[in-house]
């Protein structure tokens, strides 16, 4: 019995020490929170560039590559329309290529109110997961410059942040890898 109690005490002690090691300070957590928000803002700029008819084809393709790097490999992006209740989900590259080829003469895309709806929470595997919400306004204009389509969509983006290591210049570098998951449509309005 004494042996069992002693072993239990050791397990609890080691577990407690490991838990302490895994916790990160408030400052570091803040830095990670900001980093994840920054990635979403980066994505908003990439979407704007890809959607713009003024962007050269080669530039748009380069930007699609960069935007794709922000996402997890199987992530999907939801697309809605005020004309339908259906929400279509695309993989990231097809979504961006579809955006690039939209049949409008001019496209304006703006993201705003980018903020956490669910703070980054540490998961058992060490990954931090949170949800960031964004509002997107979309405006498509025809050749005559008339507004042909508009909507405002609220979307939730799941964010995954994981501590990783890589070797650079002969030394190990610990870094926080932020990857965006699915981008789910929450609401779409004709405004």
């Amino acid at each position, binding site marked *: 019995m004494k042996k069992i109690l002693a072993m239990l005490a050791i397990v609890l002690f080691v577990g407690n020490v490991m838990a302490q090691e895994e916790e990160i*300070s408030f400052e570091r957590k803040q830095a990670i929170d900001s980093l994840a928000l920054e990635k979403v803002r980066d994505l908003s700029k*990439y979407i704007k560039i890809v959607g713009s008819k003024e962007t050269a084809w080669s530039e748009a393709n380069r930007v699609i590559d960069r935007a794709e790097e922000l996402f997890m490999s199987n992530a999907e992006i939801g697309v809605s329309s005020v004309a339908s209740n259906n929400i279509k989900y695309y993989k990231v590259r097809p979504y961006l290529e579809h955006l690039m080829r939209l049949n409008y003469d001019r496209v304006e895309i703006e993201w705003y109110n980018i903020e956490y709806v669910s703070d980054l929470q540490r998961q058992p595997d060490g990954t931090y997961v949170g949800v960031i919400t964004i509002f997107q306004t979309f405006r498509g204009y025809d050749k005559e410059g008339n507004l042909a389509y508009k909507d405002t969509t609220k979307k939730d983006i799941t964010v995954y942040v994981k501590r990783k290591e890589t070797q650079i210049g002969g030394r190990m570098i610990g870094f926080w890898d932020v990857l965006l998951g699915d981008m789910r449509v929450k609401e779409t309005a004709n405004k």
Partner: protein
Amino acid sequence: MLVLLAAFITLGGTTSCKSKKKLAKEAAEAEYKAKVSEAVRDLTAILNDETVWTLEEKENRVQTIKDWNLKNAEVDDLLFQVEKKLARERAQANQKAEEERRAAEEAAKAAEAARQPKNVLEKNFASIASSTSTTQANRIINETLTLFASNNVPVLIIISQAGGFNDYDRPTTIEDYLNYLKDQKVNRNSVYNLKLNDDGKITEVELIKK
């Protein structure tokens, strides 16, 4: 007759000698007066800034007048005033020369600092982010890439230094980072550290969040 002739010669010689001395004295006095007049004229002109002489020329002129040693009250008074004036001008000229030397030294230091890779990078990062066209941004990107050993030089971005060690963002390459600045149009990071090879080319960049 002979006695009369001798007396005439003797008297005549004496008169001639006296006349020469008188003439010499008159000439000396005239020369003195001329020098005094010249000195007064020049010193007054210097005092009233009515010459086109340089400071050195004015100082030389004053020295010449002093060397004449005229012992004239008016000249001495003017000399006193002019020397004071020229001393002030010399001090101002020396101060100006020193300021110019310092300014030139600082300009040279600033030019040297501007040529340092870190400062060149800071400037180019800002220029790319604020470019008004893709063409302009690409030109600066190509120019900036010549500072690097290759387009794949790693770029590490420190997001936090809490707890005594660095937390980084996902590493990228310099080419991607420069394009990132072009796309995002925001320069969020400062140069924290650079590694250079023997050719002076950058082989690693460490940035830090501003």
